[in-house]
């Protein structure tokens, strides 16, 4: 049994919150540069140039890339041989999010009740997903998720007979209806299978993939490519003002399915696909 101190987890989560919000991943930066070569619209090109300049300023000044520093979605893989010393794992994560958002001058965007809407003041609670895995390591991924793109996301209970065609039609339609709202160029996370809530979680998990990576299953890799091509024919373009680069990537996560169902979820991410990982 390996022990990890509560404070170490808390401080790591706090650091990841700040870094994820201020330092854009190299994969996303490369995708902007590639998009700039592909884009035909002069307005679209100017927007991509602004996004590249923006991430440079954010990195240099340690300022958030976007003022919407999001929900803190935290993915944890805890080895079965790990014990947290000095407190509970979930408390360490929640305290880490509060510390990171407060000390890092990140925006607090969470209200304690959906109808009464009083800000919690420290961006908690975080959304936490935990997997128990073999070993004695603790892996933490912090994924800040903005509200504008989250609002353009959807779960639909398709029928098994709708097949791959039905899935593709739903995904493309969801992106087309979103237009400028989720801050294109977007990254599209797609969850297929599982239950109603499982497929939504998979769609969010898909957004952790590195841009440029391909699905390990050639069937889904091909579907991702087809979806990306179709989405980029929509003409929505950077910020929805018209252009070729509507999406930077489409990522699919599939899961076993009940014989009577075919749930599908689309979780849209804005161009600032943010996540940072630490392994303790």
């Amino acid at each position, binding site marked *: 049994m390996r022990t990890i101190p509560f404070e170490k987890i808390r401080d790591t989560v706090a650091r990841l919150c700040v870094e994820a919000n201020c330092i854009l991943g190299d994969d996303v930066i490369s995708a902007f540069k590639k998009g700039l070569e592909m884009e035909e619209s002069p307005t679209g090109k100017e927007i991509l140039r602004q996004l590249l300049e923006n991430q440079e300023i954010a990195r240099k000044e340690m300022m958030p890339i976007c003022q919407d520093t999001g929900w803190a979605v935290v993915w944890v893989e805890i080895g079965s041989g790990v014990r947290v010393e000095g407190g509970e794992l979930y408390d360490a994560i929640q305290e880490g999010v509060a510390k990171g958002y407060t000390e890092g001058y990140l925006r607090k965007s969470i209200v304690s009740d959906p109808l009464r809407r009083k800000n919690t003041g420290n961006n908690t609670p975080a959304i936490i997903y935990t997997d128990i895995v073999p070993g004695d390591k603790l892996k933490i991924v912090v994924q800040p998720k903005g509200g504008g793109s989250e609002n353009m996301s959807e779960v639909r209970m398709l029928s098994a007979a709708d097949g791959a065609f039905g899935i593709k039609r739903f995904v493309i339609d969801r992106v087309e209806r979103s237009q*400028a709202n989720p801050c294109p160029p977007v990254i599209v996370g797609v969850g297929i299978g599982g239950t109603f809530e499982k497929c939504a979680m998979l769609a969010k998990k898909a957004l952790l993939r590195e841009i440029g990576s391909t699905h390990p299953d050639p069937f889904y890799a091909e579907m991702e490519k087809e979806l990306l091509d179709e989405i980029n024919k929509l003409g929505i373009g950077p910020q929805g003002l018209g252009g070729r680069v509507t999406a930077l990537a489409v990522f699919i996560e599939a899961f076993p399915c009940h014989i009577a169902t075919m749930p599908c979820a689309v979780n849209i991410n804005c*161009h600032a696909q943010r996540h940072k990982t630490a392994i303790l």
Partner: protein
Amino acid sequence: MGEIKSVRTPLTDEVVKSLRAGDAVEITGLIYTARDLAHKRLTESLQKGENLPFNIMGAVIYYVGPSPAKPGRVIGSCGPTTSYRMDVYTPSLLAAGLKGMIGKGNRSPEVIEALKRYCGVYFAAVGGAAALLAQRVRAARVVAYDDLGPEALQELEVENFPVIVVNDCYGADLYKEGVRRYKREG
């Protein structure tokens, strides 16, 4: 992008009429931040016949909830939030004298109609370009609704704040026209 037009706030009818969908514009002067809850309060004040906490005549409202300012800075990151949530409040604000709005994303047919009727303009700033936009803000002070935190009403002094005209006072819509231009069938 063609030539960049410079405008100064408060906006006049003459300036609004000179702007066309697709124009790149840089705004200099005072603008006011307001988003969901601030809009609700402003509209309630108008309905009750109360004075608004800022002069709305010729004003430009920016839909933004900035990140907190670090010590020594005037503002944190401050890119636009999605505009459609403010659509329900906008026509009455335009009727009261508002001339311009900065946000991102499509507006309702009612807002587009009100822009024609009251001679107003809707600009888009680049969503997410929040660190870059913060560099164009010279000063910021809370004017009202301090209790709303990131949603408080603030007066920002901006210099060469970069935006694009989406909906002009003639009914044009760059979102529709731009997408139509680049859409590929099949």
